[in-house]
């Protein structure tokens, strides 16, 4: 059996490996590029969604504030008095729930 001299054998293996490495590198590069495109796209969409959610939160907060404001105005004593007047209520002319001093008879 003819033996290949060692340096020649090493060279062949090296060249073969280099070609393999190049193919792998190109493969990895393409894969990473595609992954980056997909991830970036995904991130961009998520960022948009996040901004949208932020906007919605701001809107809800603003609406809560508006509702609170309306509640406060509706339950303001001045407003209530005006509404009571318009509904025909009259001002109190004497105390209600007055407890008169008990007589001796009542005590016993």
């Amino acid at each position, binding site marked *: 059996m003819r033996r290949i001299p060692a340096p020649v054998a090493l060279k062949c293996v090296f060249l073969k490996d280099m070609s393999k490495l190049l193919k792998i590198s190109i493969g990895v590069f393409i894969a990473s590029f595609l992954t980056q495109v997909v991830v970036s796209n995904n*991130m961009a969409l998520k960022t948009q969604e996040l901004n949208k959610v932020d906007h919605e939160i701001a809107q809800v907060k603003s609406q809560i504030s508006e509702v609170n*404001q309306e509640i406060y105005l509706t339950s303001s*004593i001045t407003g209530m008095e005006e509404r009571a007047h318009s509904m025909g209520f009259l001002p109190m002319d004497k105390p209600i729930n007055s407890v008169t001093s008990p007589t001796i008879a009542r005590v016993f």
Partner: protein
Amino acid sequence: MSALELKKSCDKRFFAFKLGVSILSLIAVARLFSIQILLHSNYSARAYDQYSNYITINAKRGEILAVDGYPLASNQVSYLLYVEPKKIKEKQKLIESVVSIFPSEVAQKELQRIKDLLDLNLYWIALEHNLTPPQKEEIEKMGLEGVGFEEEPVRFYPEGTMLAHVLGYVAEQDDGKKGGYYGIEAAFNGDLEGRPGKVTEERDALGLSTLTGGYSKVKPLDGKSVELTIDRAVQHIIEKKLKEGVEKYDAADGVIIVSNPVDGSILGMAVFPTYDPGNRNLINEVVSERSGRKLSEHVNLAISSLYEPGSVMKPLTLSAAIDLGKATPETIYFDNGPVNYSGYIIDNWDGKHLGQMNLVLLLQKSNNIGAAWVGHLVGVEALSSYFRKFGIGGLSGVSLEGEETGILRDPKEATDVDLATMSFGQGILASPLQVLFAFNTIANGGVLYKPQIASKIIDNHGKFIKVEPKEVGRVIKKETADTMVDMLIKAVDGGESKYFNIKNYKVAGKTGTAQIAVAGGYDPKKTNATFVGFLPESKKFSMIVKLREPQTSPYAAETAVPLWMETAGELAKYYSLPPDK
């Protein structure tokens, strides 16, 4: 050239080239070392500045609550409209669109203002503050370029002008931050304002936040809320009555304070003319027209307007005499005409002299000569000391911004006429609140309490610190206080105020009509009319009514008294107090 020479020449050039490359490499390495190692922090900070973005999150200002938990001062969301002129494509369209949200009466003025602002060669202009959410939405729908909004919380006072002088207001301070002015807003500013938060995030070239970048958030610490002892219903009643009273008696201004004499809590504090703390500029003009003079309408007259209280001080003089055992209600003195003190004549307000009188009659007739006599019986040192213990001549310590210190003459410098005038409430200065709390001492069995207006400080988690009533100390003996209550009831029943007394309820109180000092003496036509008193059976409330310069009559008995009695009647109805007379 031989081959050897050529080789040498090549070697030299190659050596020079290698040297050059080495030097350049060294320079590059040195520069990189400088940038990456020595100046690392500097460049890193510059880079961070470029791609990071800071957003300040405003802390929510705490609310001011009434005793029933209803917010008297709250916050509403409003927006700042800003423009970036460099991004604007259609300037005229933008101006017209923005102006369209304003009412027609201010539109023209706004048009010019916005035009002027846009003519400035700036990158960023704050165009309009305090836009409401609907106004913001309206502008957003127009799809204008170069326009943006920033949220800015605005103070909101749901009850409008109610309690304005106690609440104070919020406005921009010198450093551009918003802060409280006057009243509770100023006194509790540290608790109310909170601490702003901050968001730091990285942004891409388009200015959008990136998810992969760094993000940190320091949450804002919202301000604490302050619950007051103020009862909205009481406040509403007294404000309504005060407005009616000031207009009916044509007074320059007026004050009503209602407190709980037992623990010193303030239930209501009304000042008229008033203003709207949420819209100060608009109301200022109205107030000025009403009073006919320039008046700092933000000043709380209940604590900041010192005046000579007049005859309402007589009960304090009598308390001192009785407490020292130098007089009793039956002590007799003689009023046989005006009395001369160091060349100054002291006379009664009505010029009448009834001869033999006792101290009950002194209060009923509001006799100046008798009060001066009792004052001399007590002595200047002792009387000053009692007045100070009653809270006259100092600060009451109420938690409101702007309280003025009362003025009491130094007893060492006081002459006999000073003592005489001091005994019936002239020559000394006190605020309506100080006078009311001196009376509370009598109502409360001789113990003075500090005026209390805040009852709780509540944090964001609902935890609260309760502010307990604070006893200042005993001023007079309980027996003296009880005696004084009886005398004050008789003073009301048989005094100048008897024609206006409320039916069904006993009232202990005293009138005070004091002429107002002008250059060189007192103006007989200008008076401060005061009535201070309480319902002795229930002790549910004590109240002072003070009117400045009433025009229909200069006397308290014909102005402050009827107003006090009407208001007390309303309060008795509100508290459903059983009749006691």
